[in-house]
Structures are given as structure tokens and as C-alpha cells.
């Protein structure tokens, strides 16, 4: 089973997204909300820049010794009574989860929000195995009802408007009074809560992701704003954590540093409402907790990244600040990217996970404005890493022939100053009779530009030539 990757149709997806009125209405909130809240949180914390440097150093250190930390984590998790499963591929991870579910006879599985679950296509896989996955994060619950994937890594339903959610709830919650008032967002929340409460109690297995895996204690850490993650991991008999290997953090001190930059970067909160540390299954005397705890650690291409130029991407703590500040994301939203991870972080990560041949559009669809890098809490040079993908694409001859030949001609001239002078002199002279208005509304071969905007006319004579003539 493989994920449905629609990135090859990125351009068409983007055009559709731009014409989607509901989406455009929903996206307007992203731009305003997230950016201002983050800025206010950063302004209120004088040591934020120092914390960013510290967070980056913690992740770099961990990645440099990841083999040792993985061993130590497994040892400590075992000591706490958990079982650790290493999954090299997405398929390995799916099978590990399925095996546990089958052994305990699971029929219903509740799920906390997890991008790894999306990455490995867990829900469709479980459904095909007659196990019902129920998403318990409100955003995830909404998109599950809609049969969609997340369009944002921390706000999965950010592309949906309130009135769309209302329509979905009326369509699905048919046991409720059709006349009920759902105009206020809080009424939607209450309705989802009530629907989910039964599911929490019925579930045999709870699956969550992890924001961090703490090496010194063998714990997993989740941050949520709804508390759904806690109910997912505490109420069922079995708790499965699925996390990728770069989630490791050496100790609790380091986790607290990362938590301080995470929520501020993500939602502008000082802390998320719930930060939950979960260490092994229920011990004798514990009031609650699962009987079994399993931690599935996914590689899925990440060890390779560790060894190449994309290593810095493994510092990512999934705050979403890069997409919140991205002009391309603001324009088209997340679904157009078509490869689980979206925005600038997705443009770097998706090619590593799913193959550049399917995802080459993503690292190209950036203006390199650099705003993503400027807000990244762990200093990932996202434009540089996107450029590296473009280099690989160029080396592997994956670029369209027209783009390649146009650039080749330009580079050919740029490398030959005398020829460049001659060619540009001829070109400018040839164009000058047509540019009397000062601009072109249309020009052959420049349709990509002139379809949407005028092209200022070139000079009749270049600056360098005019300068030479003057002096």
C-alpha cells in the first residue's frame, strides 16, 4: 500500500486552490492569526533568540549521536515497561501497529494527532484491516469526516470554514436534532466532544504521535490544546506511540528548552494547554493508564538524510511556523502540495521521504523569500535545502526541457561577456521599436509574465553601453 501522492499535479492543484472560494476564505485567517500571535509571544520573551540557538544545539547534538541515543532510549523505555519497535519503512511501521491491534483483538482505535500516521497512511491501512480508526483531535476529526488529509501540520483543518464544518456535522451526526443551533464555534466543539466521548470509552487501542521522546526516562511527550491526546493514551488498554527517530531528546532539561520555543513558534502560546509525559504502562498503584505501551520508531529514509546534506531538516520540531509565514502557502494552502508535509518544511522533507521524482515541484515552488528560515525555531536553512533539491533535480535531468534550455541559453551568454554584449545589444535594438509605451502587455515567450502583469520595456541601449559612451 502506498500513499496517494498528488505532487506531480502541483501546478493544477495550485490553480484549483486559487479558484476555491471557501479555501481562500479560510486561508485569510492563517496569515493574520498565526503570525501576529507568534510575534507577540516572541516579543514578550527577551531570551527567545538565545533559546532558539540552544534548541538548535540540542537537536544538532542529538543527531550527531543518534545511534547511541536510540539504544539508550530503548533501554530506558524497556525499564519503564514499554516495548520499542524499530520500523525501517512505512510498511514495517504499519505492520507493527497492526500486529499489536490484532493480538489484543482491537476493533476500534482512537488516535491523537500524528503526522507520522499520515506519512505511513495508517488510517486507510487499518480500515482495510477491519479496524476502525477514530481521530480525536477536533481538526483531525473534521477532516476524517470529510475524507481529507491535513492541510497544515498543526492545524489540520485550517482549510475548512466554520460553515463547512457545520454542514459536515449535520450530515454525519444524524441522531441529533436537525434544528439545533451550530452558529457558534463553541457549539461545534461541544458536539464533537460528545460524539468523541463514546469513542474514547469504546476504544481498545489508543495511538498517539510524540512531540519528543525523552532518552533519559524512556518517555514520550505530547502537546495538545484539547486534552484529547491524554484520553487517547490513558483510557484504552493499549497505548501505541508512533514517532520518527529524530524525535529523540537527551533529557528533560532539553525537552523544556524545546517546549519553550515550540508553542511560541507554533501558536504564539507560552505553553500548549496540555503537555503530557507518558512513561511506560500503568504501574501498580497508578490510578489510570494503559496495560501495555508500545513505541514504534520510524526511519523511512531518515537515516539517509542523517548522512547527506538534508540532515539539518531532522532538527524540525513540527511547529508549522514556516508554513504560517510562507507566501506560497498563504496563496494555495496545504493540499496542493500533495505529499503529507506542506509548506517549506514539506518542500524539503517530502522529496526525502517519497522520492524527488514525484515531488520535484515542491522545492521549486518557493520564491526563496527566506521568511521561513527567519522564523524557524531550530534555524533550518530551508531555502538552501530546497535549492539542494533543485540541484539534484538538475543533475538527474528531471527538469522540463523548455525551462532547461532557456536557462542554458542565458547561462551560455552570461559566461561569455563579449557575446553577451553583442546579443543583448541586438536584442534591445530589436525590441525597442515595440516598447514605446514603456511596457508590453504581451510579448512572445514571455506569456508566463504578461498573462498577469505588464512587462516594463527594456532600454534601447544597455547601461554598460551608455556608461562606456559617456566616459
Amino acid at each position: 500500500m502506498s500513499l496517494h501522492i498528488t505532487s506531480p499535479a502541483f501546478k493544477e492543484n495550485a490553480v484549483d486552490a486559487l479558484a476555491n472560494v471557501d479555501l481562500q476564505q479560510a486561508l485569510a485567517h492563517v496569515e493574520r492569526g498565526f503570525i501576529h500571535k507568534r510575534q507577540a509571544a516572541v516579543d514578550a520573551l527577551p531570551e527567545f533568540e538565545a533559546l532558539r540557538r540552544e534548541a538548535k544545539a540540542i537537536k544538532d547534538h542529538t543527531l550527531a549521536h543518534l545511534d547511541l541515543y536510540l539504544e539508550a532510549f530503548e533501554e530506558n523505555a524497556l525499564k519503564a515497561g514499554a516495548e520499542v519497535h524499530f520500523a525501517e519503512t512505512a510498511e514495517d511501521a504499519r505492520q507493527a501497529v497492526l500486529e499489536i491491534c490484532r493480538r489484543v483483538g482491537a476493533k476500534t482505535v482512537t488516535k491523537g494527532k500524528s503526522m507520522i500516521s499520515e506519512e505511513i497512511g495508517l488510517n486507510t491501512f487499518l480500515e482495510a484491516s477491519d479496524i476502525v480508526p477514530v481521530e480525536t483531535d477536533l481538526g483531525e476529526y473534521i477532516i476524517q469526516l470529510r475524507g481529507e488529509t491535513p492541510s497544515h501540520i498543526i492545524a489540520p483543518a485550517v482549510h475548512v470554514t466554520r460553515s463547512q464544518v457545520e454542514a459536515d456535522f449535520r450530515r454525519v451526526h444524524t441522531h441529533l436534532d436537525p434544528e439545533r443551533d451550530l452558529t457558534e464555534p463553541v457549539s461545534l466543539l461541544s458536539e464533537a466532544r460528545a460524539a468523541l466521548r463514546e469513542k474514547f470509552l469504546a476504544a481498545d487501542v489508543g495511538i498517539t504521535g510524540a512531540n519528543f521522546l525523552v532518552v533519559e526516562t524512556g518517555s514520550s511527550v505530547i502537546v495538545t490544546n484539547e486534552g484529547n491526546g491524554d484520553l487517547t493514551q490513558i483510557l484504552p488498554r493499549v497505548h501505541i506511540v508512533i514517532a520518527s527517530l529524530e524525535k529523540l531528546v537527551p533529557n528533560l532539561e532539553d525537552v523544556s528548552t524545546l517546549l519553550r520555543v515550540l508553542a511560541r513558534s507554533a501558536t504564539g502560546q507560552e505553553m500548549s494547554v496540555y503537555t503530557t509525559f507518558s512513561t511506560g504502562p500503568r504501574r501498580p498503584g497508578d490510578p489510570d493508564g494503559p496495560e501495555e505501551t508500545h513505541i514504534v520508531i520510524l526511519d523511512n529514509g531518515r537515516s539517509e538524510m542523517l548522512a547527506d546534506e538534508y540532515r539539518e531538516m531532522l532538527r524540525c520540531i513540527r511547529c508549522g511556523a514556516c508554513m504560517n509565514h510562507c507566501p506560497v502557502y498563504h496563496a494555495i494552502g496545504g493540499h496542493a502540495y500533495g505529499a503529507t508535509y506542506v509548506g517549506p518544511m514539506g518542500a524539503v522533507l517530502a522529496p526525502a521521504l517519497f522520492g524527488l521524482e514525484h515531488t520535484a515541484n515542491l522545492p521549486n515552488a518557493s520564491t526563496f523569500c527566506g521568511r521561513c528560515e527567519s522564523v524557524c525555531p531550530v534555524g533550518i536553512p530551508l531555502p538552501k535545502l530546497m535549492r539542494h533539491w533543485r540541484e539534484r533535480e538538475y543533475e538527474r535531468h528531471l527538469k522540463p526541457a523548455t525551462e532547461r534550455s532557456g536557462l542554458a541559453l542565458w547561462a551560455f551568454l552570461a559566461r561569455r561577456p563579449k557575446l553577451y554584449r553583442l546579443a543583448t545589444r541586438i536584442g534591445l535594438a530589436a525590441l525597442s521599436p515595440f516598447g514605446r509605451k514603456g511596457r508590453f502587455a504581451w510579448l512572445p515567450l514571455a506569456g508566463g509574465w504578461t498573462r498577469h502583469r505588464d512587462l516594463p520595456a527594456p532600454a534601447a541601449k544597455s547601461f554598460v553601453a551608455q556608461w562606456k559612451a559617456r566616459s
Partner: protein
Amino acid sequence: MSSPEIAGGKGSGRPRVGLFATCLVDLFRPETGFAAARLIEAAGCDVDVPESQTCCGQPAYNSGDREDAKAIARQVVETFEGFDYVVVPSGSCAATLSRHYPELLADDPAFARRAEALAAKTFELTAFLYDVMGITKVKARFAGSVTYHDACSGLRELSIQKQPRELLQSVEGLTLTEMTDPDVCCGFGGTFCVKYPEISNAIVTKKAATIAASGAETLVAGDLGCLMNMAGKLSRDGRKVRARHVAEVLADMGEGPAIGEAK
């Protein structure tokens, strides 16, 4: 190693500046080149414009064509390394020389150090005037309100934000009117705007609206690529805002036809 094209400092003791006009200024907007030269001279430097300059190589570099980008980088190093300073009326091209060439040529034993040396003396125009030459006021008049767009590379790679604004404030008759989010990308992105024209259009449409909403009569910025994108959108949308390179306003050359206007 010095280039044969360098005029030689005339024994004046004035710093010798190589003006890297950029390909867009060279071909589309010579006025900006002359304005930059005037400003650099007024700051007390001698200016030369080497004829063998072409392009900084960004189109190749950002398209993944590293070999052509390196070849162009070596050529720029050879052309400009003999000057005391290299000044560029573009944040993104200046950043290519000063931030990216050293990395591009790091593995080239014949050029690694020379690229570092060039990087250390390469500056975007307003940063050169303000930070290097200590110019805080210019002798210029410009009647009207102006709004300044922070082109991305200059802002985020070179921290250019205060310099152009301070200099603009010193222009007689000029009112600086900030737009909302002047630091948000205009959607140009080099080849991005023709590879993904619809997305680029969505971004520049929004930008043109915020520019118009500022109420300013003139848009200025430090990068011609971004300016051509915004000017082209403003005129296509029938908006009355005119667009100029910041150098033209600072050099008292803000009277001629604006970008995209008949000459």
C-alpha cells in the same frame, strides 16, 4: 590580481568602487545604474563599470545548475576583485556575491579565498552609503509620498531595512508612508514568477493592493526584479502608483519616466 578594465584610482586616494549594475538594471533600467553611480561618487568614491559584467548567476544557481553558477561566480570574482568595494543596486544580487559565492566556490582551491575576499567588500547600494561611507543624508528633492518595499533577500540576508528608510527621510519634500507588511514577498522570486505564474500572480495581486492602500503616490524598492513585478501588476490593474528604484529618488533623479512608463 587586478582587472585590466579598472580605471585606476586617479591617485585621488578616493575608494575605487566597481559598480555591478546587475543584468536587469543593465538591460531594463539604465537610469538606476546612473543614479547608483551618482550616489557613490557623491559619497566620495570613484566609480567604474567594468564592461565584462553580465549577471550574478542567480537564475542558474537557484535553478540547480551549480556548474554554470560556479563559472559565472568565478568570472564575477575576476572582474571585480581589484576594486576596493563592489556595490550592487540590488539586495538579492549583492547577497549572491557576499553570501553565496563563498559557499559555491568553497571547494575550488583557486577561488575559495578570492570569493571570500570579494564577499567581504561587496555591498548593496544603500548599505554601502549608510553603513560603509557613513552617509545619512542625501541632497535630493522629491515632491510626494513614497512607500518602501523591503525586497526579501536584502532584508533577510543582508539586514537592509533601516538604511534606505533613513536616506529616504532625508530627501527634501518626500513623505515616507509605510504600507502594511512591507516585508512580505511580492511574488517575484526570479524564475518562480514564470514557473508558477498563477501563484506568483496571487501573491503580487495582494501586494499591489497593500501598496495602493498605503495611499503613497510612488513605490520604491532596492531590487529591480521585484519592482518590475510590482510595477507590472500595478499598471495592469490600472492603479496610479508609480514605481522607481530607491537609487533614483536618492540621487535626485526621480523626475523621469517611472518603471514601465513611456520614455
